[in-house]
């Protein structure tokens, strides 16, 4: 080793970089081995015929080109057919956008409630977090039990007592209604995330803005529109993109509530069904890649707008 390279090797900067890499290598290895490599491998699987029969010899699976993709695109479960049968692609988009918007709306109202001081605010805030932190399995099954189709279901009982329905309804087994309810339950479960993000921003708004507006004679609605909403614009956008991506990727909620039936089959559920009910891993991977491509569009927006703004 020449003197110059030796100096560089021993310089404090180089030693720091070496230490950094040795500290981070176990994490980097896990992230690479369990996320990045599988993600790339998944592209490979989507172009090959992989089933349960050749799972143990997966690297010799026959190459099938775009066959898996064309199978997915032509599957009745995937493509839009008519107003009655949306197919997983359209259902996914409708479901994600509607749940995200509703979640943010509810979260905004909740944050406004908690933004003003009152006795017991800390406890109330903790209670408001329950739906979000409770295990999804418990939450899904208690909603299923509330919406139970038998007369002993709570919602059936209440609506029949009020005279709004004559006979018990199978809410989660009715096309249209099932999707609406799944969206509603999403908003019930995920609003606390939006609420906390908005609340943090609300508390950072400079109070003099409101005082100035009051001096100018602005009423409550004007103040809300021109100060509160204007100040929240950026955080609302960030929540929107984040929740949109997470909802798009969500499997458990719909799988547990409806099993993907009655017009609620979304892309993650379809991926699961192709892969682990039909054991056609190639087709499952192709579906997942289509899902990822749609999410990638949202990701691009997120990187361009949110992450860039954070760096500034």
């Amino acid at each position, binding site marked *: 080793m020449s003197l110059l390279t030796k100096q560089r090797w021993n310089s404090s900067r180089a030693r*720091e*970089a070496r*230490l*950094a890499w040795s*500290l*981070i290598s176990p*994490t980097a290895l*896990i*992230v690479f081995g*369990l*996320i*990045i*490599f599988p*993600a790339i*491998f*998944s592209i490979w*699987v989507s172009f090959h015929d992989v089933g349960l029969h050749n*799972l143990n010899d*997966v*690297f010799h699976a026959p190459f099938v080109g775009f066959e898996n993709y064309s199978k997915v695109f032509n599957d009745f479960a995937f493509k839009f057919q008519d107003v009655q049968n949306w197919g997983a692609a359209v259902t996914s988009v409708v479901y994600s956008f509607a749940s995200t918007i509703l979640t943010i709306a509810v979260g905004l109202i909740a944050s406004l*409630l908690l933004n003003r001081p009152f006795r017991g605010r800390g406890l*109330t*805030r*903790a*209670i408001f*977090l*329950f739906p979000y*932190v*409770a*295990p*999804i*399995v*418990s*939450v899904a*099954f*208690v*909603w299923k*039990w*509330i919406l139970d189709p038998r*007369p*002993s279901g709570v919602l059936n009982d209440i609506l029949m007592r009020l005279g709004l329905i004559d006979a018990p309804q199978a809410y989660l087994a009715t096309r249209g209604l099932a999707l609406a309810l799944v969206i509603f339950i999403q908003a*019930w479960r*995920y609003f606390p*995330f939006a609420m906390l993000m908005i609340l943090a921003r609300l508390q950072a708004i400079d109070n003099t803005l409101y005082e100035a507006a009051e001096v100018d004679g602005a009423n409550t609605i004007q103040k809300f529109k021109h100060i509160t909403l204007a100040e929240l614009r950026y955080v609302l956008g960030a929540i929107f993109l*984040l929740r949109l991506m*997470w909802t*798009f*990727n969500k499997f*458990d909620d719909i799988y547990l509530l409806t099993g993907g039936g009655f017009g609620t089959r979304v892309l*993650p559920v379809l*991926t*699961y069904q192709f*892969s*682990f009910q039909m054991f056609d*891993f190639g087709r*499952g991977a192709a579906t*997942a890649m289509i899902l*990822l491509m749609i999410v990638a569009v949202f990701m691009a927006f*997120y990187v361009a707008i949110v*992450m860039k703004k954070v760096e500034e």
Partner: protein
Amino acid sequence: MSTERKNFIGHLADWITWPRFIFAATMIFFLTSILFPFYWMVSSSFKTRAEIGGREPVYIPSAIRLDAYDELFNPDNPSYQKFGLNIINTLKVSIPTAIIAVILAIFGSYAIARLRFKGKNALLNGILLVYLFPGVLLIIPLFAMLAQIGDRLGFDVQDNLGVLIFTYLAQTIPVALYMLTNYFRTIPDEIEQAALIDGCSRLGVIWRVTLPLSIPALVSVSIYTFMIAWNEFLYALVFLNDHAMFTMPIKINTIFNDPSPRPHVVMAASTIMTIPIVLLFLALERYLTEGLTAGGVKG
């Protein structure tokens, strides 16, 4: 001298204004919609089979009956569910996940927060982007990959809690890394510099200075990583087949899909799974909320 004596309604009428009314009504609406499902879960778990299967719902159980819990835990019960085993399996998975994820994230986050090296930002952004990846995308290649490796090294992919921990690390490390990096950045660099000048090594600084100052963050990151593993459903559903290896979420799903419906048992199991989490949040709300906005609960 006649003082006007107001009754309760009179006081209320004075106090109430439109904004206050709207506030109170919305608050009541929120609290009922949030709490009713939880009340329904807990109260249903204390009902008998007759109460749960009757023509009409029983809003308030006549007495606290432990029929459902008996079925979960009592070996003499004709439909004994061995739920104790499922609790132990869940703990066997979630405790190691939390410990390993936090230890690895401590080193990784420290490097990102404090040390200068090439490719740091790319690495951090990459890890964050990975956090937005769909779980269903990764499960197929992971399953195929681990089946291959297991075949060579002679372990089973299915019904192997170790394999499950391994896949949970992929889900918990990104968030742990992100939360700890943010926290480490708030610790003033001067304290560490002083220790370095006093002759402490970097690892010594992490152990003696950084970690003691980060205890609240370490607690909250451990709780979040624990919770992710405690709640996880999809990977456990795919990787576990043997009832003796089931974690709680998969077991509850199985009881729910049993041919003879027993909602009180499902609710009892759900109550057991939910109570610890809810109590943790009530007790540590102040420390835990920040982690939520950092994505501590994915989804």
